[in-house]
């Protein structure tokens, strides 16, 4: 309850019982009914068997670290129960991936190393080269294809990528560094055009080798540095300046319509374009504030392209092809059984057959 920041009173309200009843469960003077236990498990986003543990297990280092971050002065940084569940789910996937790597002698991933003293432009250039990412390709894509295409490039490098719909709309994503199974997770509540920025932002954190839980407000030096790396990655300095000078034909961007043209050209969000213009000194004062106040507050989800959203597809979208393929390969080599894979992905045998088909298909998720 403490980890999920849930008070006995909140739980009592949710379960429709007096607070004294909840306290009697905590003090082990009484036990909930089966129905109450099921509700309790759902509300705290834990399996029901968790509540039979004799003592709370030690928090995993990542969750504890995120929790410390939440202790700071901004309450929107506190991950809620379901968001902590998403973090745990990512940690579980990472643990399985690491275990499989150990059994199959999979080697470590060599990310381009970076330190916060490196210039964001240099790091962005190294990352583009490492991922084989071309700005020309980015411009050719449809705006809702940029994030999935970037995700595919990141996954080709062996990095686990997860998509969660987090309850906290301010949380852009998080990352869990690891030598063999680094993981990036992004919040799909975010606008589809903003997700590419989140992927690169978290990738920059991985290059630094630090865990992060990132919000929309870049409120620390590291956060601002990662945000700049992401900006430089998607809107490289030279291409950006050329577009402003040759296409917009201005020396300073003042008009929101120009910001939109720039954003549409590079397939990024209007906010990202405005921030980047500010970073390179091409934005009029208060341009970002104007753009921010006029940009849609409702996020646009990614297109489904007429593909049915089955549970199997949602699982692959959530955990990414890298993780799913690692599990399927481990099954093929006998490291895992089909029953292990069913449990890790929480699917039925029928759905697993569909998972196999989706994982081997190169189409966007």
């Amino acid at each position: 309850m403490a980890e999920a920041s849930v008070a006995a009173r909140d739980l009592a309200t949710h379960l429709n019982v007096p607070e004294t009843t909840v306290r009697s469960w905590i003090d082990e003077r009484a036990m909930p009914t089966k129905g109450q236990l099921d509700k309790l498990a759902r509300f705290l986003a834990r399996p029901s068997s968790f509540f039979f543990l004799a003592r709370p297990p030690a928090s995993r280092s990542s969750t504890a670290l995120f929790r410390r971050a939440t202790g700071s002065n901004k309450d929107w940084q506190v991950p809620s129960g379901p968001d902590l569940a998403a973090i745990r789910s990512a940690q579980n996937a990472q643990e399985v991936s690491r275990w499989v790597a150990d059994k199959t002698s999979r080697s470590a991933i060599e990310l381009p190393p970076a330190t916060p003293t490196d210039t964001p432009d240099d790091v962005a250039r190294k990352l583009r080269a490492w991922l084989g990412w071309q700005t020309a390709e980015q411009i050719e894509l449809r705006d809702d294809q940029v994030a999935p295409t970037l995700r595919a490039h990141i996954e080709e490098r062996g990095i686990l990528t997860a998509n969660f719909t987090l309850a906290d709309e301010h949380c852009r994503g998080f990352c869990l560094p690891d030598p063999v199974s680094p993981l990036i997770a992004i919040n799909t509540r975010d606008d589809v055009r903003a997700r590419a920025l989140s992927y690169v932002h978290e990738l920059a954190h991985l290059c630094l080798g630090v865990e992060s839980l990132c919000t929309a407000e870049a409120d620390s030096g590291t956060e601002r540095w990662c945000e700049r790396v992401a900006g430089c990655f998607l809107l490289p300095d030279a291409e950006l300046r050329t577009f402003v000078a040759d296409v917009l034909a201005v020396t300073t961007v003042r008009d929101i319509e120009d910001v939109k043209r720039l954003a549409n050209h590079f397939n990024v969000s209007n906010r990202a374009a405005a921030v980047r213009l500010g970073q390179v000194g091409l934005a009029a004062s208060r341009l970002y504030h104007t753009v921010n106040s006029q940009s849609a507050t409702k996020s646009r989800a990614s297109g489904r392209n007429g593909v049915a959203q089955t549970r199997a597809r949602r699982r692959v979208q959530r955990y990414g092809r890298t993780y799913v393929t690692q599990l399927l390969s481990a099954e093929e080599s006998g490291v895992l059984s089909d029953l292990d894979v069913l449990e890790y992905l929480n699917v039925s045998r029928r759905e697993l057959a569909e998972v196999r088909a989706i994982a081997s298909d190169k189409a966007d998720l």
Partner: protein
Amino acid sequence: MPTVFVIDDRSLLAIGSLIDVTNHIDVFSGMNQLCESGELMFPPEVVKAVRQRGDASQPIDRQLIIWIEAVQGRMDCDVAFGHKRAAQLWAQNNGYEEGLDPFAAGDSCIVAVVGLMLDLVERHTDFVVVTDDFTERPGRAALGSITERLGCRVQNIRTFADECMRLCSSAA
């Protein structure tokens, strides 16, 4: 008192692939007899897991799901919270700091199965656990390893299936 067989979702789901398709009906018939006489036991959580993981479009899983739903109504194997707590206490005291199934989504049956085993031990009931699951992996403890560490007997799935077939043919 005859020996009781305790079985989990993984063993039930594995039976189909371990025995020849021509013997499936005999195995189910044998298991049916064991359920009728109270010699085959599994908690309701196992039924739920089999329904969740099985593929009803495939003959063997369909047969298993139909069978398990039919017998569950006649089986009284609810595991008390106290025995589930005992199972998780044993787990935490024996190296499974996060319990037997920390990655479980929703209900997981291994805690219930181990709870049932502890209940049978308490009641001095002779039982054998049907499992081939000895590989430790992240997220779910291996039932075979737990059974051995608890000092209980284990029978592999194929031997159990053979026994079910023998039971079926002797009844015929």
